[in-house]
């Protein structure tokens, strides 16, 4: 049989279902965030691993200039090498009707008479290649969709200077091009970068690689010594122009995907705990105030002879019903929204399938935190109530002694009317309770401030990068370093206003045990179109006496100005250099390493070479410019800033950064929940007082003022607290969002702060309106007659 106390529990919960649900929802949101983010990160990780395994992605990639096929046997004999595949990998340009500039593409060979042992592709539409036909290609699914291409369509591509037309027979996804990004770009852009696969024989003919290959893919055996394999592969390929073997972790697509997932992981570890902590703090405050208002009933139960333990257990169940209810709600919706988020990211990462998985740890943490904070909130108050004798507990708390607030009244007597003085004195009388309410609302508001600042900072980062740092319109890159005379040719094109040459050299940077596979960017000493900046976005000169590193890269290599960095050049004669580090930059995108252009060329003993140029053009003549560039030989690609910016915006809206919108929404709901709960509890605590005021002749509005005045006062005091806490919280959260790919400095826009203030004020107004309705509905006789 259900005991009467349990019946009381059930009915009390039902009676205050509105409040109980409001509290449960706040804690649920904290838990939801944790479970959702954990599910998202785990699932992406698991899915990626499974995808790599099923399609046998290589463990080691070894590019080489040109090696004959028989070298593969030598590579296969290396200890630790499990599977080997040689392939041809080359750049191409695709001409599409109506497109002003050619689109960069990557051509990849597939074995002619068998499925690839390594780096297989996933066919989404059409069929695989027919080895007897040399004009068939498989096209990357993402590009095909962005351009409305499909099996049966034809495509012309220029490879090695020759233009050919191919028939698309199938669309594929590939674990190697999860993140399909053109060389030198940061953000994937489905419409502007293509990958196509074709028969080994046909591609060999196009690149003069018959009976040879220019990249080895290696699958490692179990217990392989990774470093030793790299070393032996490099030695085997050395005489054929090996460009340095590297592992999967340095493979471009995998690196970007890993960065994105780890960005999500960092923000999943950093942000949800903050949300959960705020929710837990609120739960603590709400529960303690709720138990406080049950004081008389506690006294009564004790008068009947219920022990502290029995009464405690009763309220513990009450608290747990709300806390566990909230946690369960959070878990369920966390799983649902986690799944939805994964589906969203699936679009972005282009996994062909999805493995959804949440670690039990997330559930347990969510439950543990909600249960512990709720119990704490309850226990702290129960202990205080238990310390009272039942006779005292049963009486409504003795009228609080407002005498030391009296002088204050004298002071303000002329200024304030009676109800205002009631509000003020209650404040002074119970500073602890007021402080808790202020902190509660302030913390909730801090979440909103922080998330709005995060949103503004993302926009500002984009803005700074594409206006202050990058002031070019077009970037032209060449197939190989060319003489700087090319620059004059570009300058003479009608419509080109300014030209700034650059040289990119593929390198591995080393310092102690840290290394980074990237490029050195040779720039003119005083760049105008693509600038490096110091703190505060002040442009700096590019030095010729040493390397200037992006802060993020300096951190990664654990190096600082004054140290010497080892540079392994991965092209040309591949010299090994030692250069001093002379400065750091505060760049926002990527991790560049700068050296003045002619100093770089001198160091490489290749004077007057450029790999491309940044252009500023007359927008009225852009088509003339594009046409001129299209007809220039040796152009490997053209990228338009407008497109790059758009691609980057997409990256940040759909990638790890996309999470900021979800977080902002949840922050808003939590903020509202806190304000609403504060108003509700204040009403519950003062119900009798307000009824008394009504009885002695106060109008509804006057009585409500006592309550709403307090809410207003607390809210206005909470505003500065929220602004301050939000300021620091935003720094912490932004740190979590920054990755190797982009760094997001905090941008404290007055509008973000203003919006948070407006949101809290609006939440207070709505809550006040709801409570005001309850004041109007108050049954005077009932609430005064019976002590409940």
């Amino acid at each position, binding site marked *: 049989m259900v005991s009467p106390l349990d019946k009381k529990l059930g009915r009390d919960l039902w009676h205050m279902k509105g409040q109980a649900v409001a509290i449960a929802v706040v804690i649920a949101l904290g838990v939801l965030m944790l479970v959702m983010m954990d599910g998202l990160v785990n699932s992406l990780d698991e899915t990626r691993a499974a995808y790599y395994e099923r399609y046998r992605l290589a463990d080691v990639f070894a590019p080489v200039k040109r090696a004959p096929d028989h070298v593969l046997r030598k590579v296969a004999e290396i200890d630790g090498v499990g599977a080997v595949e040689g392939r041809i990998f080359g750049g191409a340009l695709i001409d599409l009707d109506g497109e002003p500039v050619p689109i960069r593409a990557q051509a990849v060979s597939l074995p002619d008479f068998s499925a690839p042992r390594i780096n297989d592709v996933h066919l989404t539409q059409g069929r695989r290649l027919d080895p007897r036909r040399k004009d068939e290609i498989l096209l990357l699914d993402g590009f095909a969709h962005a351009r409305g291409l499909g099996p049966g369509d034809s495509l012309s591509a220029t490879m090695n200077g020759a233009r050919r037309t191919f028939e698309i027979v199938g669309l594929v996804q590939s674990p190697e091009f999860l993140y399909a990004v053109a060389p030198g770009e940061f953000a994937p852009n489905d419409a502007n970068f293509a990958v196509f696969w074709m028969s080994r024989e046909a591609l060999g003919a196009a690149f003069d690689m018959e009976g040879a290959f220019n990249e080895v893919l290696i699958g490692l055996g179990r217990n392989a010594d990774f470093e030793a394999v790299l070393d032996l592969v490099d030695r085997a390929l050395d005489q054929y122009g090996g460009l340095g073997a590297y592992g999967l972790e340095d493979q471009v697509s995998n690196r970007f995907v890993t960065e994105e997932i780890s960005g999500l992981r960092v923000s999943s570890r950093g942000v949800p705990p903050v949300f959960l902590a705020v929710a837990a703090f609120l739960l603590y405050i709400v529960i303690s105030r709720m138990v406080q208002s049950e004081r008389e009933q506690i006294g009564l139960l004790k*008068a*009947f002879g219920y022990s502290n333990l029995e009464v405690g257990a009763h309220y513990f169940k009450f608290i747990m019903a709300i806390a566990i209810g909230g946690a369960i709600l959070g878990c369920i919706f966390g799983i649902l929204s986690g799944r939805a988020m994964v589906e969203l990211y699936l679009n972005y990462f282009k996994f062909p399938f999805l493995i959804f998985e949440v670690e039990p740890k997330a559930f347990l943490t969510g439950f543990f935190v909600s249960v512990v904070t709720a119990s704490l909130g309850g226990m702290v108050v129960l202990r205080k109530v238990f310390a009272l004798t039942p006779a005292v507990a049963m009486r409504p708390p003795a009228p609080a002694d407002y005498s030391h607030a009296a002088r204050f009244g004298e002071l303000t007597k002329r200024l304030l009317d009676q109800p205002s003085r009631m509000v003020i004195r209650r404040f002074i009388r119970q500073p602890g309770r007021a402080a808790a309410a202020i902190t509660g609302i302030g913390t909730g508001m801090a979440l909103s401030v922080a998330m709005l600042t995060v949103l503004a900072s993302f926009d500002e980062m984009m803005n700074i990068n594409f206006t202050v740092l990058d002031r070019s319109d077009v970037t032209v890159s060449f197939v190989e370093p060319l003489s700087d005379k090319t620059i004059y040719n570009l300058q003479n094109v009608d419509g080109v206003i300014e030209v700034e040459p650059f040289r990119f050299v593929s390198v591995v940077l080393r310092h102690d045990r840290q290394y980074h596979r990237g490029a050195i960017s040779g720039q003119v000493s005083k760049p105008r179109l693509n600038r490096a900046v110091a703190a505060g976005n002040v442009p700096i000169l590019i030095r010729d006496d040493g390397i200037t590193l992006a802060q993020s890269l300096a951190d990664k290599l654990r190096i600082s100005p004054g140290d010497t960095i080892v540079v392994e050049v991965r092209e040309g004669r591949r010299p090994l250099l030692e250069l001093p580090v002379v400065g750091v930059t505060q760049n926002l995108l990527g991790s560049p390493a700068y050296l003045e252009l002619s100093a770089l060329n001198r160091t490489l003993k290749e004077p007057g070479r450029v790999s491309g140029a940044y252009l500023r053009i007359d927008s009225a003549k852009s088509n003339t410019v594009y046409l001129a560039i299209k007809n220039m030989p040796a152009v490997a690609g053209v990228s338009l800033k407008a497109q790059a910016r758009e691609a980057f915006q997409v990256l940040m809206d759909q990638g790890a950064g996309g999470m900021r919108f979800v977080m902002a929404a949840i922050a808003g709901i939590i903020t509202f929940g806190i304000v609403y709960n504060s108003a509700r509890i204040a009403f519950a605590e003062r119900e009798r007082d307000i009824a008394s005021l009504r009885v002695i002749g106060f109008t509804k509005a006057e009585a409500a003022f006592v309550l709403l005045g307090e809410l207003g006062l607390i809210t206005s005091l909470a505003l500065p607290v929220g602004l301050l806490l939000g300021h620091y919280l935003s720094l912490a959260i932004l740190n979590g969002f920054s990755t190797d790919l982009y760094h997001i400095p905090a941008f404290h826009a007055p509008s973000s702060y203003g919006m948070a203030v407006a949101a809290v004020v609006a939440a207070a107004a709505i809550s006040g309106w709801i409570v005001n309705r309850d004041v109007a509905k108050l049954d005077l006789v009932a609430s005064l*007659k019976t002590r409940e």
Partner: protein
Amino acid sequence: MPKSDRAAAHSIAFRSEGVTKVYGIGDAAVHALRGVDLEVPIGELVVVLGPSGSGKSTMLNIMGGLDRATAGSVWFMNDELTAMDDAALTRFRRHHVGFVFQFYNLMPSLTARENVELVTEIADNPMDADEALALVGLKDRANHFPAQLSGGEQQRVAIARAIAKQPEVLFCDEPTGALDSKTGRAVLRVLKDVNERLGATVLIITHAAATAAMADRVLNFADGKIREVSLNDTKLDPEEIEW
């Protein structure tokens, strides 16, 4: 120990010596009790009179184990209440005492029967909840919630709740204070019945001096002390009391 044996061994239910109670400290100190000595024999119906602030409620709270004395001693039978810890006081209330309050103090979320069961559940030798409700004439209102009952009915539920555990002592603080005279008499009748049928010692605090006519013993409180103790040779029935 069985009730009858105990009653034979001790004729006195409550005894107190020099009980004082001070609320607050320093200037704000309020002396609610200034040395109360009393004796209440087992099975009597005692009416406690006195103006507001005379200390009568405080004294009853201390005797009922709801509050603690600042100084002095109170015995219930052989046990010194003033020496008990919280757990012992809880056991004392649980097994020996019933309370009836001026404002009924029913749990609004429980029905009449469930309010009674709240007590029968933890008592040693309770009567059936329905039986207790029948004793106060509310058998057919058992499934009503407090909000559906009149003031008198609510007070009778409170009495049923108090007597359901078959307490040795029943404390009633202004049980008729919130009721009209007709309902008040009915409630007093129930209390008298409990006193006579269950043999419980009943202490009733009241403002209504006329109630004293139904008591065995009348304690008059003033200024934190007992000013006068009077014994009635002939008791009136509640129905005969002038209100």
